[in-house]
Structures are given as structure tokens and as C-alpha cells.
């Protein structure tokens, strides 16, 4: 088709579509669509019966973005920062959300947190278990092969990397434990010799 002013003709007319597709066009009028216009001032709509909410007690110091004037009146209480990763997180929160370092430090803290948690779990009655926690047995129970073989899937190129990322921390943790045990053994034998 030459580049002209016309809108290309559709294969089906509106009447045909209305007949074929249940509900076609019921929200043709933007007035029937929710959240149109995007902003509509109506402070009574939400059910809130306060101008500013009561404040949730801050039972332990809560980290916050320095772009906020104060700690928000309500906040989540999951997983307070702890250990080395906690120190990194607290440092990240001294930088604004506008700074790449804020996010990069948080991501690094996430990795430190995961590794430290794996290591600590080995000292508990509930050590991390790569088999059950990864869910990898569903490869067998939920047709891992059939879901992939002969399929034109774009994700097959990188899926082999997943186990490396998933198991990597165990390998590192195992290495740390191995080196530690070796050092301990050496110290004990040396002490025995002396």
C-alpha cells in the first residue's frame, strides 16, 4: 500500500467484532473506564477517616529514604537489617534514591545477606537444602524435558545459568567451611605437637 492519508482497513468491522467477542466495546466510552481521568480529587472516596494516619510505633530504628521528610506513619516490619549486610543497607539509606550507589549497595547487601544466611543456617537444625529450596525436583514431576524439547523457546539459551546462580552460594559457603576446617585441623595438630 502506498503511504497515503488513509487508515488501513481492518479485517473485521466493529459489528462483526461485537458479534464475535463477548463484551466488545462495552468500555468504548472512556467515561466508563475506571481511573479516567488519571487524577480525580476526592478525599472521601477511599474510606479513610483521618487527615493524617495515626503513627505506628517505631519499636526499633527504622531505615528510611532521605527523600522523605519523616518516617512514614505506617511501615513494614519484616526482617530488620542485621550483620554486615545490615550495615551496608544502613549506609545505602544515607544516599538518595537518585544515586546509583544507593541501589547498587542494596543489591550487594542482598548478596552478602544470602551468603551469610546460608553459612549461618549450617549452624542450625534447619540448614539450607539446595534440592528442596530450589524446587528443582519439579523438573521430573512437572515434565522438564517435554516442556522444553522441540519448543521454540527463547529462554533455553540462559536457563542453564540458573543452577549456577542458585547453587553458587552453597559452593562458596562449602569452600569457606572447608578452608576453616582445614585451618582448625592444622592448628589442633600443631597444638598437639607442641
Amino acid at each position, binding site marked *: 500500500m502506498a503511504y497515503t492519508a488513509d487508515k488501513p482497513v481492518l479485517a473485521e468491522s466493529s459489528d462483526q467484532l461485537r458479534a464475535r467477542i463477548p463484551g466488545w466495546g462495552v468500555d468504548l466510552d*472512556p467515561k466508563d473506564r*475506571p*481511573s479516567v481521568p488519571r487524577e480525580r480529587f476526592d478525599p472521601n472516596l*477511599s474510606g479513610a477517616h483521618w487527615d493524617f*494516619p495515626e503513627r505506628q510505633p517505631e519499636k526499633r530504628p527504622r531505615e528510611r*529514604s532521605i527523600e522523605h521528610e519523616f518516617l512514614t506513619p505506617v511501615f*513494614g516490619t*519484616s526482617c530488620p537489617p542485621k550483620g554486615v549486610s545490615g550495615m551496608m543497607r544502613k549506609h545505602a539509606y544515607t544516599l538518595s534514591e537518585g544515586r546509583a550507589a544507593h541501589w547498587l549497595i542494596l543489591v550487594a547487601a542482598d548478596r552478602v545477606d544470602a551468603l551469610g544466611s546460608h553459612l549461618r543456617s549450617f549452624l542450625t537444625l534447619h540448614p539450607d537444602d539446595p534440592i528442596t529450596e530450589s524446587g528443582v525436583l*519439579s523438573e521430573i514431576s512437572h515434565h522438564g524435558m517435554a516442556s522444553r524439547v522441540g519448543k521454540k523457546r527463547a529462554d533455553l539459551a540462559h536457563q542453564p545459568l540458573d543452577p549456577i546462580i542458585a547453587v553458587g552460594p552453597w559452593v562458596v559457603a562449602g569452600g569457606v567451611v572447608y578452608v576453616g576446617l582445614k585451618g582448625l585441623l592444622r592448628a589442633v595438630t600443631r597444638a598437639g605437637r607442641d
Partner: protein
Amino acid sequence: MRAMVYRGPWKIRVEEKDVPPIEHPNDAIVRVTLAAICGSDLHLYHGMMPDTRVGMTFGHEFIGVVEEVGPSVQNLKRGDRVMVPFNVFCGSCFFCARGLYSNCHNVNPNATAVGGIYGYSHTCGGYDGGQAEFVRVPFADVGPSLIPEWMDDEDAVLLTDALATGYFGAQLGDIIEGDVVVVFGAGPVGLFAAKSAWLMGAGRVIVIDHLEYRLEKARTFAHAETYNFTEHDDVVVHMKKITEHLGADVAIDAVGAEADGNFVQHLTSVKLKLQGGSPVALNWAIDSVRKGGTVSVMGAYGPMFSAVKFGDAFNKGLTLRMNQCPVKRQWPRLFEHVRNGYLKPSDIVTHRIPLEHIAEGYYIFSAKLDDCIKPLIVPNAG
């Protein structure tokens, strides 16, 4: 109580945790009867979202029964069956007063760039989520709604995120009668966006993915015309060919941060976490839409930078629209559509997994095994 707990990238387990207490007078504690795993949970599961801490319970798509309410709660009482929007929001701040519930300013101390979301890292407020037997629901007078008598639980749970978001994605496209709409991604969000585009009068709805079983669902469930991008050298050129070389009027990115189709983009974001997300689908959307067209972004991206083709969007004079979905604002109209049978969200549910087996649920949904489209999580109480 039993709760899903994050242990690091690609690793989760179910642990014994304390039942969450009332922390604020307008809190409720909800006993979860049904939850779901969302595509957004995969970004956490893969360790892409900054400040995702080991020990957190995920889950932002859930329904349940009110177990306990704080002293200032007026609209709910013990025993009420409720559906809870994935947004935590106060109802009274500058943004909530204008209907921007997903952008609430009073619930997320960790970041001003995003509102509060259940079970979605500290960057979204540090709230434990609903893939557990119990969950704390702040602002109980504002967020939850009673589940209507006539509504199925599986429809209700999908209204708390996936359906509301898919519809919202189509809505942000500002579709007018006869528009050509292309949806990237045939996951729950993309399927619902495609289906909703017809309600707004689209003249042609095209869905693109690389998973044949999902494209099949897009044809049957969403009446869409579909293409597998792995079958085309260059999906952007293909899109031009099938639209008289003009491009679609509206493009919807329902893929987000983990997009496939470009190994380097995927590697640098999902595996190496050097980008906020892999914007492959977003870039395809920008390049496939016609000049002056609209790109609606429902796929989620992290707070860090992503290699987006901004210059093309600029030179084409595109309108870019996006947000986390303000779920509760969508509900009244969507309830009507579900009741009238125009939308049947539970049609896309493929797996119902006990909470104790949630690690397998994540694995199956993440690796896209067993023709998985939408996995639901059933806690012991469910």
C-alpha cells in the same frame, strides 16, 4: 504459622513464623485462604529487586478471612471474607486523595519512588506478604473489600492483581474504536490486557510471546492474533509488515524486567543485576508502535537504570504511560464485567499448589514448565 520464606536467589522454603501482630490501630490480621504467584514475584525470586532480604515472606495477590482487627477499624470485623489489593495505601495522602493508590506517600519509608506493596522487598515498604497462613493488612478500612456473595474465590484472588493490572494496561493505551493493539507477553497480565482491549473497542489485537502454549491461550481465551517471536528474524519488522508499515496504534509491554529475546539484555539484568530490568519487550513496543502512538508499560522494572530506546520514543512522538496498578480503583467496573461474564479470570489458572510445596510452584512458574500460566497457592487453612 506456616509461611513462605525467601532464602536467596532461586531459593525459598516454608518455615514456622509468628502470626503477625497488630502494629497500628487500623491494621487487620487476615487468615489467607487463597494466594497466587505473580510474574512480579519472579523478579524477587531471581534476586533482581534491591533490598530483598532473606527471611521475607512474599505474596501480594491473596484473599482471606479477617481474624483480628485493630481498635480504629470500622468497616471490617472478624469473620469477614475479604479480597486485598496488592497495594498498601493510606487513602488520605496527596496521591491517594487523587486516586493514585499505587503511589501512596504514607506507607513506604524506604522509597519515595514507589508505593507500598505486600511481600515485595523493602524497596516497596518491607511488608511481609500473603503466601502464608496469616498476613498483616494495614489500613483495613481503606484497602480490602468484602468478596461479593456471587464471586468465585479464584476470580476474587485474580482481581487483587493480575486482572486489574491487565485491564489497567489496556486502559492506559487510551484505545479508541478500531485501534490496532499489540500486546507483548502472554502471561496473566498480557492475556488480561488483550482481552480487555476488546472491551475498549480495539479493532485488532495481536499478542507476541515465545511460549506456544501461552500463545494458544491468547487465541482461545483472548481471541487474539498471535506470533511467536522466535519464528521471526526481527519481530519489529514483522510487526511493520502486518500493519501496512505504519505500526500498531497502541503497544502494551506485559513482560517487564525479565524479557527474553536478547541474550545480553537478559544477562546484564536478570543474571548480573546491572540493570533495573531487561527492556527487550519495551524496546520492541517502542519500535513497533506507530509514530504518535501510545506505549503502555505494565511490565515491572526495578529502580535502577535500564537500556531503554528513549530516542526512538522521543523521535516518534510517543506517549508513554505506566504505573503500578491502583487496584481498588479498578474494582467497581471490573466486578460488573466479571458478573456479566465478559471477563472470567479463573480461566487462566493452571496450577493449584499447597503452601508446603511452594518452592516447586516458583520453579514451575519461573522455568515455564508443565504449561504453567497462573499458579495459585493454597494455605492449609484454604
